[in-house]
Each structure stands twice: as structure tokens, then as C-alpha cells.
């Protein structure tokens, strides 16, 4: 039996070592990235049995040292990242990206950063992991080609700006509590401005980094311009990293009353994101732009769910389900979109074709992905919506149920353009296109996630336990 210390350390040691090796040996880099991505996925799978573990790195306990903990909230995110990295690396889009010099090392560094972030229990350590993630993500975005330069630069600035706000907030936390460990900050029982100020700063920084409306301006260009496999990661899991920290702070570092007080703001933010994203998606003419705007909309579910999470593990569970479903589905769709683009040489929605009739799995991936995004049963999106509706109605917010139901239709309507473009796509006599099995696998996972309700409940229980 592997000790928790070794297992948790392996979460970042493994990809980081891989990254260094890939940097040192460019010829083997791509294969290395794929291999390590899969090994990481296996590792995360194995970690399911260790949920609840908490280790003090270097043997130094909390106030002094940095603690890692693998709880019910962290594991789903780890799993999401693991799955996305593994499948995206194997996909044609992933292999194309990894073939670029340096990409494999960035890829693995990003993975290391994400893993470290998800298990970190320390506010300052989270800042560093956020930096690792941001820098690696920006670099991966910039690899998307000449058009990606400007969006990547904007992304970098936004990200750095967000980090500064976050760091300021953490500093205030430290000043007020003398602790950096999130649990200890929460235990300090802050109130008044001493609580509000750092929370506001960190929240601001994180929303900026997550691209949640109204700070979404940078997101669609960046996600649309990046290489498809990078987009899959960015949309699928990188924005989730900032949201994950947000959840952490508001549920662990802040008392429920604070979340309760801030809930209306979160709800408004969430609804605004839903509206803005849908509007943008309606206007998009390019496939990747459509998908990127749909990310803006879907990210809105996070603040929305957070708006009901005060004292409600159910809403947190819904949030997790939202993030996981969106991550898998969006990853699948981005990878599939790459398949379409490769097959057609462009991604204009109104003139897609199906060369050699090879796009079956790709189409299937998009179809299932859309199902999950819309939140139709039995997909993960449905699980999320149902859970959120239940949490909200339990708090007396009946309006959430029709809203969520309507949002599904709205999503369906703008995604319909994509789906009908696929149906229309005529089969050409010959041509080549990637088969898209990885995308399909991710999409299937997004749908199968709908059956993970009991597992998520169990994980949330594990998280609630001390």
C-alpha cells in the first residue's frame, strides 16, 4: 500500500518530472507527455480510495508548513483534469499540439500545476499553483499560431492582474489571522471588513482569472485562438481551477453567513454570464467561437450555484457536477471541432462536410457533448441541474427550477446550429479526417457522469467529515 504522502506528492512530482524530461529530450517529448498523462489518470483513479487524506509536506504541520489534502471536493477536479489530459493527449489534436517544440513540457507543467492546485490546502500555495497554471496556459495558448499572440498576451495580463488581487487578498488574510492554511483562516472566525476585504479581493482576482461575466472579455478570443487541444484544456479545466479556489475560499475560509450575504451578488453574476454567453453564442459564425461563448455561459453556473451553497452541501455538489460535466463535454467538443476543421480545412458552420464519412465518432462526440451541456438526462449536466434545482428549491428559491429548465432550451437552441450543421454535412467521396475516438470517449464520460450522483454524494459526505 502506497502511503498518502507518496501518493499525493506523486500528483505533482510525476508530471513535473515528466515536464523536465520532455524539456530535456525533445524527441521523446510527445510520447512522454501522452504516457505521463495516462499514468497521471491512473494515479488519480487510484487515489479515489484515499479521499480524506491530509498530509503535511516536509513533516511541518499547518501554521508553519504547507498541507495537502485530498478531499471529496478535490478528487472530482483531479479526475476531470486527469481524464481531459489523457484523452486530449491521445487525440489527433493533442498529438499535433505536442509535436510542437516545448509544448509537451508546457503540457505536463500545466498538469502538475493543476494537480498541485487541487490538493493544496494553503492560500499562498494556491497562489503559486495558480501562477504555474496561468503561465503554462498562456504559453499553450500562444502556441496556437500567429493569431493567438494578441489574445494570449491579453490573457497573460488578465491572469497576472487576477493574481495580484488574489495575492493581496491572501496577504490581508495573513495579516488578520496569522495563518495561510485555509482551514485555519476559516477557524479564525473573521468578520466585518477583515473578512470582507480579503474575500472581495480574492474573489475579484479569481473571477477575473476564470473569465466569469462580467470579466469574460478575454476568454472567447483566447479559447478560440488557441490550439484545439489547448482549448480543450483551457475551457475544460483551467478556468475551473480558479473557480475551484473560489469554492474553497467561500466554503472553507468564510463562514456560511458571509456566503449567505454575498449570495445575491453571485446569483446575479451567474445569470449575467448565462445571458451574455448565450447572446455571444447566437452571434458566432465560427465553430470555435460558438463553443468559446458557450463556455462563458456555462461558467455562469458556478457563481450561480455558489449563490445557493451557503450551508448546502447539495449546491456544492451541484457545482462540482456542473464543472465536471462542462469540462468533459467542452473538452470533447473542442477536440471534435478540431476533427471537423482538419477534415474541412475551415470551421465555418454553414459549409461543413464529412470527407470519406469518417466523422461518425466526431459527430457523436459533439452530439453527446451538446446533450451534456444542455443538461438533458441522463447526462452529467442533468445531474448538476437537478441537484442545483433541488438545493435551490429546498431554500425556497422556486424560480430556479424554471430558470434551469429554460436554460436547457436556450442552450439547445444555440447549439442546434452546430448540430444541424453536422447533420447537413454531406459525405464527400474521399478525404481524410481524424476518427475522433478520444473526443467520443470524453463525451461518453460527460454523459455517463449523470450516473455519478451517488458517488458525488459519497464524496461530499467525505468532504463534510473532518
Amino acid at each position, binding site marked *: 500500500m502506497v502511503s498518502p504522502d507518496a501518493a499525493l506528492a506523486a500528483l505533482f512530482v510525476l508530471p513535473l518530472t515528466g515536464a523536465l524530461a520532455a524539456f530535456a529530450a525533445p524527441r521523446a517529448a510527445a510520447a512522454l507527455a501522452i504516457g505521463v498523462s495516462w499514468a497521471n489518470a491512473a494515479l488519480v483513479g487510484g487515489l479515489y480510495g484515499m479521499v480524506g487524506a491530509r498530509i503535511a509536506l516536509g513533516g511541518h504541520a499547518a501554521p508553519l508548513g504547507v498541507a495537502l489534502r485530498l478531499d471529496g471536493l478535490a478528487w472530482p477536479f483531479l479526475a476531470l483534469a486527469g481524464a481531459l489530459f489523457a484523452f486530449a493527449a491521445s487525440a489527433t489534436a493533442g498529438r499535433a499540439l505536442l509535436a510542437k517544440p516545448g509544448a509537451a513540457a508546457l503540457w505536463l507543467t500545466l498538469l502538475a500545476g493543476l494537480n498541485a492546485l487541487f490538493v493544496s490546502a494553503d492560500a499562498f500555495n494556491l497562489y503559486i499553483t495558480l501562477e504555474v497554471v496561468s503561465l503554462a496556459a498562456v504559453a499553450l495558448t500562444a502556441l496556437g499560431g500567429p493569431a493567438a499572440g494578441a489574445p494570449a498576451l491579453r490573457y497573460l495580463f488578465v491572469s497576472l492582474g487576477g493574481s495580484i488581487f488574489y495575492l493581496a487578498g491572501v496577504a490581508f488574510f495573513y495579516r488578520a489571522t496569522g495563518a495561510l492554511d485555509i482551514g485555519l483562516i476559516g477557524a479564525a472566525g473573521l468578520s466585518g471588513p477583515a473578512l470582507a476585504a480579503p474575500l472581495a479581493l480574492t474573489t475579484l482576482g479569481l473571477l477575473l482569472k476564470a473569465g466569469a461575466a462580467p470579466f469574460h472579455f478575454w476568454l472567447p478570443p483566447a479559447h478560440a485562438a488557441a490550439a484545439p487541444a489547448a482549448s480543450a484544456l483551457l475551457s475544460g479545466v483551467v478556468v475551473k481551477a480558479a473557480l475551484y479556489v473560489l469554492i474553497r475560499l467561500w466554503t472553507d475560509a468564510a463562514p456560511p453567513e458571509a456566503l449567505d450575504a454575498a449570495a445575491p451578488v453571485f446569483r446575479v453574476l451567474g445569470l449575467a454570464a448565462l445571458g451574455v454567453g448565450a447572446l455571444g453564442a447566437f452571434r458566432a459564425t465560427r465553430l470555435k467561437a460558438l463553443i468559446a461563448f458557450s463556455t462563458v455561459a456555462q461558467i455562469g453556473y458556478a457563481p450561480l450555484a455558489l449563490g445557493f451553497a451557503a450551508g448546502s452541501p447539495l449546491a456544492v455538489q451541484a457545482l462540482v457536477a456542473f464543472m465536471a460535466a462542462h469540462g468533459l463535454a467542452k473538452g470533447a467538443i473542442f477536440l471534435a471541432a478540431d476533427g471537423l476543421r482538419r477534415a474541412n480545412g475551415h470551421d465555418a458552420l454553414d459549409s461543413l462536410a464529412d470527407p470519406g464519412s469518417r466523422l461518425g465518432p466526431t459527430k457523436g462526440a459533439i452530439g453527446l457533448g451538446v446533450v451534456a451541456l444542455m443538461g438533458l*438526462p441522463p447526462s452529467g449536466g442533468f445531474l448538476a441541474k437537478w441537484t442545483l434545482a433541488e438545493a435551490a428549491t429546498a431554500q425556497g428559491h422556486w424560480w430556479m427550477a424554471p430558470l434551469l429548465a429554460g436554460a436547457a*432550451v436556450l442552450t439547445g437552441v444555440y447549439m442546434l446550429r452546430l448540430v444541424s450543421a453536422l447533420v447537413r454535412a454531406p459525405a464527400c467521396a474521399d478525404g481524410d479526417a481524424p476518427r475522433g475516438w478520444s473526443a467520443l470517449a470524453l463525451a461518453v464520460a460527460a454523459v455517463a457522469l449523470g450516473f455519478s450522483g451517488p458517488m458525488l454524494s459519497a464524496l461530499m459526505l467525505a468532504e463534510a467529515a473532518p
Partner: protein
Amino acid sequence: MTGSAELLPVLIVGATLLSAAAIFPLRDDQVRLRAAVCLAGPAATLALVGALIAGVRSGARYEARFPFLPGDDLLLQADALSVLFVALSSALWLVTTVYALGYMRHGPNRSRFFGFFALCVSATMGVALAGNMITFLVFYETLTLATYPLVVHKGDAATLRAGRTYLIYTLSGGAMVFLGTMLLHALQGAGGFEVGGLLAQAETRPSDAALRLLFAILIAGVGVKAALAPLHGWLPLAMVAPAPVSALLHAVAVVKAGAFGVVRVVYDVFGVTLADALGVLPWLGAAAAITIVWGSVLALGQDDLKRRLAYSTVSQVSYIALGASLAHPAAAVGAILHLIHQGIMKITLFFCAGAFAEVEGVKTVSRMAGLGRRMPWTMAAFTVAALGMIGVPPTAGFVTKWYLAIGALEADGAWVVAVLLISSGLNAAYFLPIVGAAWFRPPPDDMVRPEPPPRLSVALMAVSPVVTALLVMAAALLATSIFSPLGWAQALALREFGFER
């Protein structure tokens, strides 16, 4: 897992899913292999359904439960009502597959077509076997999705427009069901469909206003698929789909799932007694009655044969809702019977319409003159089904109308009989001229016949409607025999719905 009691419903849904999964990867040119797989699925399913029927008849209880949502399970169970629907679906699936093998003999994406076809049936099976509202919702939405690629199969602009309308309607309907399910969950907590009504067994009864709202939401949700006016707009558009799809859509899958949902909501969620006490049933009845008459009136003016049939479906399916709204055992028998009978009749009509279009190039009513001489068997099947729609004995439609009318009279709803009469008259008005012209008028001079399909195709396209037309007759001729749906329906009305006669 305790053996077949849990396994059988899962196996039935699984068999259909499996056949879909087996069809999708096939290449379009693997015609024979696909035909074999396509036929193996329904055959295996039929065998399983046979076992299920035998089991249910002998009183066995089938139930499979999987944890799904917080506080609610995915529940597949086989009660008498679901068995009826499952039997209909699997039998007609087989017939339609045979037909479709003849019909879809060229064109791209045939594997996709047959795959979604099987998936569509899976969803229908799931709707039938759903043991609670959540499960119903899951399969109800799956059905929407599985059908969309079939509706837009041709992929041209008009088809895509129709598909868009279809999706928006049905997704909105699904959203309403979601909402209703949520509300039900909030009012009642977890709970499956119950004989006599889930809500009727609540210890503390929620407020009447909440219950009425719930009823309205749920009925609006299932009403979209059941094409209850004014939610029927999608149905006549959806006839752009290939004929086997229209046949399946109108007879078994989509429309019938909606109607089945109405029955479930009225009987097993609310229970007749509670629904009656709430005073919501007359509203449902009125909506159904308006739909029946309005659909028939619209059908009169349609020249496109499939469109005329589609409006006819709008009208005919609402008989089920009408019967369910009467809160009377005989009417319930009529409603449940019509679930089956409308299916076999309408599938026959669509089979025929497709065959006319494929073999003779006839798509409009105005060009059907003389068809009887050239396609006697198909036209004979069409005639039988059309007479069934009118309610002429000895066809299935007569049995339905008979029970509905008796139930209406006994439930003091004489106006329902008037509705039935008006509808039957209109049915006659839009079907009999077709039949008359087809048999007794010479064909138009400027008849341009398409290249005749291969003989095998023609044969397959003729066999299916003839078989279903025979079923239409048999459903009435053997109404009181043990093979007929009538016995099931009566047993259901008496036992499941808690009526005492």
C-alpha cells in the same frame, strides 16, 4: 441483483441499446450485415418481451433500481401498463425494421439511420418501463434526442427547419416535464408510479393550487409530444422525415410516449380520484376534444398525404387523453386500447404512404387516383387502416370508440360522444375520398412513375403494411380472445386503477 426479476426490464432496454451500438459502427455498404443486425435486435427484444408478458401474467413483479440522483433512483419496472406499451413497441419495431430495410435502400448515413432508429426504440422502452417520474424524464428526453437525427435524416434545408421546430417544441416540453418532476419531488419526495396515484397516497396533501399547477405543468410537458393542441405544431412538420420514421414517430415512439405520459400522470401520479377531486380532468378533456376536432378539420385541407396523416394523428392521439380524462373504467379501457390501436392503424397508413411515394411516386392525395389497381395489397391495407380510423367495425378503431363512448355515457359525458361523432365524420371525410379515388378512379394521365425499386424492396414495403392491417382487423375480430389488448386494458382498468365495477 436477484435474478430475472430485476434483470428482465434491464435486459429489454439493454437489448435495444446494444443493437443500436452494434449498428452505428457499420459502414454504409455493409448492407447484409446491417440487415441481419437490424433484425436480430427486434427479434431478441421480442423474445424478452414475451418472457416479460408471461411473467407479468403469472403475477411476477419486475423491478430494477439503480441509485441515480440525490434521493431518487432510476427505477425500471414492469407493470401491466408498461407491458402493453413494451409489447406494442417491440412488435412494431420489428415490422418497421422490415419495412425500413425495403425503404432505405440507398442514400448516405444508413447505419446512422438504423442506429438512431434502435436508440429511439430504446428510449420508448425506457419510457414504458419507467417506474418513477425521474426515469420517465430521462427516457423522455433521450427520445427527443434520438429522434432528431431521424427527423432531419434527409438533411436539406426544409428538413432542418422542421427539425429545428421539432427540437424546440420537444425540448420545451422536456423542460416542462423536468419542472414538473422537480415540483413533484419537492411536494412528495422520492416515489414511484403507484396504482391509484402517487400523490393520492401522500400523508399530508399539498395545497390544491400546487397540485393543479403540477398537473398543468406535467400535462403541458407530455402534451407536447402527445400533440395536444396548441402544442401540436411540430407534428405536421415532422412528417418531412422518411416514411419509416414517420410511422414509428406517429405510431409508437414520440407521440405515443406523450400519450403514455398523459396516462401515467393521470392514473399513476395523481390517481383518478385525486385528479377528479381537483377538478382538472374536464380541462384535460376539453383540450383533448378541441385537439380532436381541430386536427381533423385541418387534415381535411391537406393535399400532401403524409401531412394529412399527420394531422390525423394530432386528432387521433388525443382520444387517449380524452379517455383518460373521463375518470371511468370503460373510458380508461378505451384510452389504453387506443394506445395500441392507434399505433397499429397509423403505422399501417404511414407504411402505405411511404410505399406509394417510393414505388409509384405518389405523394399527394390529388394524385392517388387509380392506385388501387397498381398496388392492390398496399391499398387494401390502407383501406383497412382508414376504415379503422373512422371506427368502422370490425377494426381496432371501432373497439376503441365503442369503449370510449360507453365510458363517456356512463360518466355522464354525452358531449364526448358528440366529439367522437364529429371526429368520425371528419375522419370519413378525409379518408374515404382517398380510398374511393384510389380504387375507383383511373390514374391521372400525366402520371410519371419513378424508376421501380428492386422487387425485394417492394415486397418488404408491401408485407409490413399488410401485416399491420391484419393486426388492425385481428385486434377487433379477436377482441375478447386472450391475445387481444382488450383483456389487458380491462384488467388494467379494474385492477391498476382501483375501479370497482
